[in-house]
């Protein structure tokens, strides 16, 4: 159902000791769309993600998700509502196996994690679903290996699988292709396309090829403020955006 907003921020602002990292942001993300968030380094993209997911509390403004005001809630309260995120820097449990990662994510909404009196083998309840997800991202053959043994591109794929394990309404991906070679980038694009079917996605990426291939809608952030917004072709041609990008150092 494209059209109705799933996520809305109003005058969202985050100050770090007087420095406005995110400033008066009104962001609307329609249900079922893939939304790109771009902007030079330090524009406030990650900070915005942290505000949406509760890792940071806004200085002012509101965040509404699925008709609910979630401003100021903690990450562990927001995640169960249906927002899953990935981190800009690969963020895994390095010593755990791939299957364990997915079982942990799948167990989260069931409350099984509270059971201290039962055997950990009960986590195998989620084995089939875990293997399905690993299959989808092409890592099924590595299910029993620790995350630390994966190549970088595989780690990013695992992160996608973990996010999908939460069966989110909204998927937030912070630079899913950062640091990847061209092959991995194309694989990730295909993967995100496949996984995002029927979901709402907001992603940050510096790679315009990624943005162009995935995004229905693009929001450009600069110095914490929205500079431009619209479909990719329109935003790409925008004079202000071109100046912002040429005037800033970026990878």
């Amino acid at each position: 159902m494209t059209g109705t907003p799933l996520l809305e921020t109003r005058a969202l602002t985050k100050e770090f000791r007087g420095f406005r990292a995110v400033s008066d942001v009104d962001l609307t993300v329609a249900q079922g769309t893939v939304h790109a968030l771009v902007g030079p380094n330090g524009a406030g993209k990650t900070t915005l993600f942290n505000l949406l997911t509760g890792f940071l509390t806004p200085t002012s403004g509101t965040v509404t998700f699925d008709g609910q005001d979630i401003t100021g809630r903690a990450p562990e309260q927001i995640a169960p509502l249906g927002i899953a995120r990935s981190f800009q820097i690969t963020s895994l449990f390095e010593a755990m196996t791939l299957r364990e990662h997915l079982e942990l994510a799948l167990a989260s909404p069931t409350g099984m994690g509270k059971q201290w009196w039962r055997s950990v083998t009960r986590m195998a309840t989620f084995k089939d679903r875990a293997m399905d997800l690993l299959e989808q991202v092409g890592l099924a053959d590595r299910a029993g290996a620790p995350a630390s043994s994966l190549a970088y591109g595989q780690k990013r794929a695992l992160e996608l699988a973990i996010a999908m394990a939460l069966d989110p309404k909204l998927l937030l991906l912070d630079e899913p292709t950062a640091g990847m070679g061209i092959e991995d980038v194309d694989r990730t694009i295909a993967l995100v396309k496949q996984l995002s079917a029927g979901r709402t996605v907001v992603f940050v990426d510096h790679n315009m090829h990624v943005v162009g291939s995935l995004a229905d809608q693009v929001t450009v952030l600069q110095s914490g403020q929205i500079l431009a917004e619209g479909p990719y072709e329109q935003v790409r041609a925008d004079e202000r955006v071109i100046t912002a990008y040429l005037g800033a150092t970026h990878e």
Partner: protein
Amino acid sequence: MSEQMTAKVDVDLAQPSILSRRNPLRYLMLLGGLAVLVLLPYWIYPPVAMDILCWGLFAISVDLLLGFTGLLSFGHAAFWGGSAYCTGLIATHWGVPFPVAVVGGAVFAMLIAWPIGYLSVRRTGIYFAMVTLAFAQMLYFIANQARDLTGGENGLQGIPRSFFGIELVEEDSFYFYYVGAAMILVGIFIAWRVVNSPFGRVLTAVRDNPARARALGYDVERFKIKAFVISAGLAGLAGGVFAISHQFASLQELMWTTSGKVVLVTVLGGIGTLWGGLVGAGVVVTLEDFLASSGFEGIGLITGSIFVLIVLLFRHGIWGTGRNVLRRYVLDRRKRARD
């Protein structure tokens, strides 16, 4: 590129055990361990054997936090000593069988651990250690002031050791050992269960990457508080048995040096190994006993030096190093079998 991350204690953990869950060597080791447990009072003076088990469980309780949750508590004397006093008071005034008194002490430890945990788990690393230390010092101060209840500097003396109608006097230490050992065993089993449960899996997630765990919907603080309370209960169980064994609870049990000693025992045994605590306690307690009986004055100096030596030589403690050696051996053999 900035990322909001939560700081944690950076401990370099030993590799996990290479033995699969059903490896026969595991059962063999378990049997061997139980045999040692049964035979220990034949080899060494029973009260010393009891001390080893008490300190072993105490260290395991610390490892549950340090090795499996990533929290360095420097105030665990509060739970060990708090329970020692509480157990002693219950046994003295209510005349209940001592296992009941010990359970009472452990529950008391958990009750005080809840607010302490609630107030300290927001801090991480050295700050967490400092907050827990501060609370333990507070309890020490209170115990010192409340002379009518605790006996102040004289401690709580002559704690009775009645076991369902039988009075186990000092000469019965041998028999007392087996009852005490059974209680410690229950504590060890609980610790093992917790570590190898879904809850334990979440704890390791919290330890390794708290931000990730939160993004998955796990309430990291609540998990830490629960781990803290469970750990305090185990420390309390150990402290209670210790007090009954000595028929004495003193301020020493609440002192910061006790908190320090148990961390030392844990590190010596191997952080994140669980069983290492028992080995560390075996080394430290027998050594202290040997040095004390030889009339040597500088016990602290010797144990301190040995600690430094072991930590320098075996970075992962005794158990952790043993596990690493076994891993290398098994991997080597597998490789050779393949070639």
